[in-house]
């Protein structure tokens, strides 16, 4: 099968500095103009098209980028990613309703809370082998939901109501139904996340994660402080999840434990696996497709989790590298490793 990822990389690498800037600007413009295409074939029959762009699509993309650091880059299976999303959202809910802080002030606090819980969970969990990590994170995701469901301070099953919208910046007002504004803000967050992941991947951290993913013992023997880099991957992934959570809460203005079930973790996992673990563009593509299709095709929207489960099984068995696989160079190392 043709490797779109390598084709794309080739075009990108053959450009000079100016060419790259132009390409990037074109890309951003196209993506930013998506809300204006509501009347076209892209329109979603079930939900409002522009709100679908915000949630699930843009939100899934952001979370998938975060989860990709953990699963794709460092090969750690985190099944409780929804926990960090929930922690960010509840931070926004609590501080937004109880204190006078606004969304932009809470955003760093929410990210810090998510990172902190990432450390708390990571220290015991990351000492263990991969499948134990999976089940511990799975449990953790559910525990966070149960705690939210049972603690009076977090509103129990009623959740938190009347969360404030973000305050206006540059004279642009955020209102409940101005989906475009939210979409563009999320786009900025996504670009920041992409930038962060790309910078890190090109440096020591990226090489350390890559070595951990391929062979943790060998990495440790070669002097890579694997535990520290695993914690790093985990915490960075958590930070993106937390940011998504803060923003989600100030978009929906109402959160309840039911918004943070295990299914979210699985959906995001499906996005990452479907698009191509480890390749950020693949992951984004996966999240866009899996976020969009259930709202475009009525049949899927009734059974979206069923379809996503099937996607996981089929992709793992037939095309484990995803739609847009990671770089060829990294893949050849995989192949050699497996034989």
């Amino acid at each position, binding site marked *: 099968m043709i490797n779109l990822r390598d084709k794309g990389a080739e075009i990108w690498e053959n450009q000079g500095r100016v060419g790259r800037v132009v390409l990037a600007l074109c890309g951003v413009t196209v993506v930013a103009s998506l809300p204006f295409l509501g009347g076209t074939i892209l329109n979603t029959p079930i939900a409002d098209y522009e709100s679908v762009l915000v949630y699930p699509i843009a939100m899934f993309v952001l979370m998938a980028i975060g989860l990709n650091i953990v*699963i794709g880059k460092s*090969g750690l*299976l985190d*099944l409780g990613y929804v926990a960090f999303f929930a922690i960010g959202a509840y931070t926004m809910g609590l501080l937004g309703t109880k204190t006078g802080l606004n969304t932009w002030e809470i955003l760093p606090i929410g990210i810090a809370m998510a990172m902190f819980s990432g450390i708390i969970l990571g220290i*015991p*969990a990351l*000492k*263990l*082998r*991969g*499948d*134990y990590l*999976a*089940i*511990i994170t*799975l*449990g*953790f995701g*559910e*525990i966070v939901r*149960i*705690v939210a*469901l*049972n603690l009076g301070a977090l509103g129990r099953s009623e959740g938190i109501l009347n969360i404030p919208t973000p305050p206006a910046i540059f004279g642009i007002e955020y209102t409940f139904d101005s989906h475009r504004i939210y979409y563009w803000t999320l786009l900025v967050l996504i670009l920041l996340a992409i930038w962060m992941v790309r910078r890190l991947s090109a440096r020591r951290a990226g090489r350390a994660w890559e070595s951990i993913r391929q062979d943790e013992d060998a990495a440790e023997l070669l002097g890579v402080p694997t535990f520290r880099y695993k914690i790093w991957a985990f915490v960075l992934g958590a930070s993106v999840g937390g940011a998504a959570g803060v923003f989600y809460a100030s978009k929906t203005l109402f959160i309840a434990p039911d918004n943070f079930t*295990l299914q979210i973790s*699985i959906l995001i*996992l*499906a996005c990452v*696996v479907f698009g191509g673990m480890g390749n950020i563009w693949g992951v984004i593509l996966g999240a866009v497709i899996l976020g969009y299709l259930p709202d475009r095709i009525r049949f899927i929207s*009734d*059974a979206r*989790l*069923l379809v*996503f*489960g*099937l*996607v*996981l*099984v*089929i992709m*793992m*068995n037939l095309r*484990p590298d995803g739609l847009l696989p990671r770089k060829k160079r990294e893949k050849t190392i995989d192949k050699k490793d*497996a*034989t």
Partner: protein
Amino acid sequence: MIGSFLDQFWSLTFGGLSLGFIYILIALGYTMVYGVLRMINFANSEIFMVGTFATIIIIRDVFKFTQTSEYATGFRLWLILATALIFAMMVSGTLSMIVEIVAYRRLRRMNSGVLAPLISAIGVSMVLAESVRILTDSRPVASPRAMEKRFIGQFFDAGIRIDNTIIVISALVLFGILMSFVNKTRMGKAIRAVSMNPNAARLMGINIDGVVSATFLVGGLMTGAAGFFYVLKYENTASNIGFELGIAAFTAAILGGIGNIKGAFFGGLALGLLETYASFFLGTQWKAVTVFIVLVLVLYTRPNGLFGEALTQTRA
């Protein structure tokens, strides 16, 4: 609090014991598979869930019990219970084998590492849970009561309920059968051989695929029996019960040392009692949290469990 705990100690203990035996049977599903594949079978919890539905189908649809029917007695009662148990075991066992073929077999042949089979098993369990959810309209399903739940004895102040007694005795029998299957039969020997060293086992002419299938079948049979006992005790089920019970049973397996059959026995009992006592003090809504904390503590302090890892140690 302490006073009323002591008052209720024995009735809590009996409830905890029967819950513990349900955990043991599900934990055996995890442990058997782990023993041969060194892999957590994420779909086991949904195999249990399907087992509970299979039980209800027998009681409600085959023997036509409704919420207002009279209780069955005598031979008819035993016939119903036995049919439901065997049907649940067959359904879960078959399903477990299918799960192995769909989720694991191809990936095992490709030698694909740990991540891929885990994700593929999670996909399968998602598909199972969602299919049942759609079929049942996301509603919990109550099981009609076929058996009068009377007390058959008294121990200190606590009455011994008949369903708890049936669960404990039949689970003990099933456990005994499993132990002798693993220790005495030819297939059991093959399973132990594969769990010790798959490559050497293959060189000795053991059909690995057959052994893996048999292991999933046996694990599924035990898990299906757990589904029957669960319905007998709690009389309801839902498409999402697999998750909580699955995590608890997995914790039980870890507690005793995953891959170790005797470990699953003691881990299940310990967890069943612990969870029942903890629910008494903290309230049932924190049950899952207790289980999770036990899981983290065990994995952190004693990752091989109390009795050590590996199916190979079950040799008598």
